[in-house]
């Protein structure tokens, strides 16, 4: 009995390992197929505006060697981080307030719709016009773009907060900080996670536009320079490293946080 269940357990884990390897093989295979397709196409067209993968790779190495890549990706990352955190905190607070108070929701709902539909480019241009071509204006523009999305998502969560648990917190005199930390925020965690996931990809892209329009460093600035020189190889090199960094953050930061926040679920 024992040996057969052990055998089954090892069988299950073996098939689990196989599944993982199979998935990795498929990913690598399809990536390789894409590179081959790209290389063949570039070879056929043979134009300097469509470099071959190897050329892009060499540009990438060159950019890493001079330290340019690290510097510009670092600047972009810093802007993403600041505006992302700002948007999550402010948007979360607004969403919580609107979800809890019917009056506030009635009062500000149309404001939210206005900001949700305001094109990112308009916000960016206005920020630069009003606050000058400064770092503050750049970060602010990105945050303002993201705040309404966070607010709308968190508002959904705040509307469905448990009254039972709030009464419990009230009876046991939790106070506002303890209630926020142990009762309210854990209930909002899935909504924050959803806002963070959709938010990070949005913030990345807007930061590039902000850099292109009014900063003298960062990936967006580099792309702008490359565009003026029609240096497609450089554009692709930065795009590839960018995708790589985003994936690292997704797998190395967001997914572990989500797993940790959800560990109580059965």
């Amino acid at each position, binding site marked *: 009995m024992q040996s057969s269940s052990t055998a089954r357990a090892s069988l299950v884990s073996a098939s689990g390992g196989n599944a993982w390897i199979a998935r990795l093989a498929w990913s690598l295979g399809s990536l390789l197929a894409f590179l081959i397709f790209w290389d063949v196409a570039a070879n056929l067209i043979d134009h300097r505006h469509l470099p071959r993968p190897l050329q892009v790779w060499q540009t990438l190495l060159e950019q890493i060697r001079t330290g340019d890549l690290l510097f510009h990706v670092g600047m972009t990352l810093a802007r993403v981080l600041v505006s992302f955190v700002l948007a999550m905190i402010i948007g979360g607070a607004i969403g919580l307030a609107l979800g809890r108070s019917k009056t506030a929701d009635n009062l500000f709902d149309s404001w939210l719709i206005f900001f949700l539909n305001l094109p990112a480019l308009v916000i960016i241009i206005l920020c630069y016009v009003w606050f000058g071509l400064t770092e503050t204006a750049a970060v602010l523009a990105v945050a303002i773009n993201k705040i309404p999305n966070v607010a709308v998502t968190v508002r959904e969560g705040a509307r469905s907060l448990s009254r*039972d648990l709030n009464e419990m917190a009230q*009876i046991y005199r939790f106070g506002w900080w303890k209630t926020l930390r142990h009762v309210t925020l854990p209930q909002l965690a899935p909504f924050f996670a959803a806002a963070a996931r959709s938010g990070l990809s949005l913030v990345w892209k807007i930061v590039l536009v902000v850099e292109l329009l009014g900063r003298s460093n960062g990936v967006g600035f580099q792309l702008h320079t490359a565009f003026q020189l029609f240096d497609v190889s450089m554009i692709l090199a930065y795009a590839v490293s960018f995708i790589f960094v985003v994936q690292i953050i997704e797998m190395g930061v967001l997914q572990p946080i989500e797993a940790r926040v959800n560990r109580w679920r059965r």
Partner: protein
Amino acid sequence: MAPVTEPYRVRIESKVYPPVANREAHLVLRDIDFAIEHRSFVVMTGPSGCGKSTLLNIIAGLDREFKGRVDLGTGEPTIGYIFQSPRLLPWRTVQENIELVLPPGDARAERIPELLARVGLTSYASAYPERLSLGMQRRVALARGFVLEPDILLMDEPFVSLDDPTARDLRQLLIDLWHRRPTTVLFVTHDRNEATMLGTRILRLSGGSATLVQDEAVRLSPEDRSDPEKVRAEQRRIFNDA
């Protein structure tokens, strides 16, 4: 811990639920007036849906929309409330759920291991509530109510929907904990046998717009309470049950 001398006093002229959608305004409670002696175990019974939980919520201060007055003495007494559902935080462990009702660094936290042992959950201190059975969750709620050493302990059918042996077990546990540290208890149930076994005094509410219809001391010694025959006899005397 408020310096208390006067008994607590509950006076409710009326409690009305405002009209909603297709339901008219509804008078839930009327003309209720009673005092609670300190360290007595008062059980409130009445048909289900008669407004017992509403009454507890008013006493707890969760519901302030009523006519009347609840006087819990000078200084705010510490209140423990054991709800009908355990109302534990699913994202905090058993230990954390109990700890959280205490201010940080409070000396009472040292009693948690002993309390957990008392409710038979020592090995579940770091488990998350959703992995426990309902009976175990109720025990955590009980420990959470007791760790505070409250001046008033409110209990709203805390043992409902449990199987008989578990309910009996928890009732005995409650009696033991109460004897070890007598506190004022207000216990709501519609189970007459449970009421007689636990209470030192029974308040009966009528159905409809509920009001107090009977206020009776329970004449049972602590030993008598573990004798089902004596409890049943006393239950017959109080409720005129056949």
